[in-house]
């Protein structure tokens, strides 16, 4: 069990990846499921956390930050991503700037039948929008986050990182 826990994706690993890739701002929707990650991000003196009111806002705020020379990441959940369709279209895809969005993959699992429609439609939605994505579940997958940053820079498009284990280790209160 301990070995299993150690292998899970740690919020600290995400923060390390942000630092490694020069992230300056996190635009996010704070929620009870990711409170530890939120508190951890706020502790970093090199990182500015912007709590938004809804997910669609995060892409617009990120665009303003990018135009001003900063490196933001949108940290949201898949439900909010789907609600943000027009913002992703108008503020992320059409703008032609690189952007990584970290998306909690609510309802996803690899061990049984997926019943949560939030998970059922997540990848379908990303395919429809033409947004490429990488799934991360464990610390060993962290390299895929850097790959997403590199791809976003090279293509000047948004790239999603789906966090397949968002409810383990992100909430420690």
């Amino acid at each position, binding site marked *: 069990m301990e070995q299993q826990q150690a292998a899970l994706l740690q919020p600290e690993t995400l923060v390390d990846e942000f630092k490694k890739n020069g992230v300056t*701002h996190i635009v996010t929707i704070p929620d009870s499921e990711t409170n530890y990650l939120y508190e951890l991000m706020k502790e970093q003196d090199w990182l500015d956390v*912007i*709590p938004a009111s809804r997910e669609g*806002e995060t892409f617009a*705020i990120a665009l303003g*930050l990018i135009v*001003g*020379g900063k490196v933001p990441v949108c940290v949201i959940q898949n439900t909010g991503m789907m609600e943000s369709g027009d913002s992703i*279209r108008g503020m992320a895809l059409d703008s032609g700037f690189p952007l990584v969005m970290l998306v909690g993959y609510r309802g996803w699992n690899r061990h049984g039948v997926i019943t949560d429609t939030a998970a059922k439609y997540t990848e379908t939605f990303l395919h429809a929008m033409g947004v490429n994505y990488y799934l991360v579940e464990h610390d060993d997958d962290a390299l895929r986050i850097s790959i997403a940053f590199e791809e976003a820079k090279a293509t000047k498009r948004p790239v999603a990182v789906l966090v397949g284990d968002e409810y383990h280790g992100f909430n420690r209160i």
Partner: protein
Amino acid sequence: MFDSEDMFRAFQPHRGESIVMVTGTSGRSWMDVTTKPERDLSLQGAMGQTTSAALGFALSQPGERLVLFDSEGALLMNLGVLATIAGKKPKKLLPFPDGQRVLRHHRRTTGAQCPRY
């Protein structure tokens, strides 16, 4: 009725070195009024989101004064941004919600706002 072009003409002498953002139907007339197009910025693309984009820019360039003209219809679509702005307190972001006549224009295309006559 206060026309948006009249509003822009009244504002123009006072812009100084401000960066100016406009959006939507009403914003088009700014292009006829501005004398510093190199200091104008367009970050529109999704109705309701320009104010959020302005916030992002203001946070990235805290030394620049940013004046935003957004329609009240657009602001109504994204009222939560006011709480986001209040939380981050950008010192030099000046949002001007535009209303009434502009609302009529937007009402034709979105239908989401309360009609006023």
